[in-house]
């Protein structure tokens, strides 16, 4: 089945120690998104890629970076995690950003704990 895969499912890091979360997709979708979700709140969009075109949300801290080396993979790098960055990180894809009515397909998420 075509899907969105996130690894690892659970990640523990130390305060200030860089961490990378990964996402891969077999859907061949143009657009990939990274969301942060805290405590059953609404997901908060951090940034998205349309193909190789990177789009950062205005309020995303500089501490968060992303890479998309090819269509299938996207990475979220947190350069110096703080306690406030503990959250569920969700990767999502959609077929084409230009069509605003396309639904997003989400991965299972990575739960990040910062000690």
């Amino acid at each position, binding site marked *: 089945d075509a899907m969105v895969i996130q690894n690892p499912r659970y990640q523990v890091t130390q305060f200030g120690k860089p961490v990378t979360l990964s996402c891969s997709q077999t859907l061949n979708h143009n657009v990939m998104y990274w969301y942060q979700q805290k405590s059953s709140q609404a997901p908060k969009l951090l940034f998205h890629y349309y193909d190789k075109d990177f789009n950062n949300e205005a309020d995303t801290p500089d501490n968060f970076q992303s890479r998309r080396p090819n269509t299938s993979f996207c990475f979220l790098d947190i350069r110096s995690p703080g306690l406030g960055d503990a959250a569920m990180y969700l990767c999502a894809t959609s077929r084409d950003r230009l069509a*605003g009515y396309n639904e*997003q397909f989400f991965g299972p998420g990575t739960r990040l704990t910062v000690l």
Partner: protein
Amino acid sequence: AQSVAQPEDQVNVAEGNPLTVKCTYSVSGNPYLFWYVQYPNRGLQFLLKYITGDNLVKGSYGFEAEFNKSQTSFHLKKPSALVSDSALYFCAVRDEMWGSARQLTFGSGTQLTVLP
């Protein structure tokens, strides 16, 4: 601006009874409306969407939603609730006039509990 409201943090319903999860929206143009469900420690799962046309939209797992333009609502419904429907439900909207220039706006979520 686009916004969406889910007025109920929590909805409880008995198994076998009909359920409704409420959603209202605000957009400048026409809305694209979505419902997603999230089970514990999982990502969001797409249930259904309204783009245009028939106001009653049918989706996965027996869910449906009714688009009401005059009331700016898009309530999620199911005729007979199952215990397995217990989850967190998110409504989301995108304003057609902005197309891809604006991302989805999610509601705050409604926790549905179906009691056996």
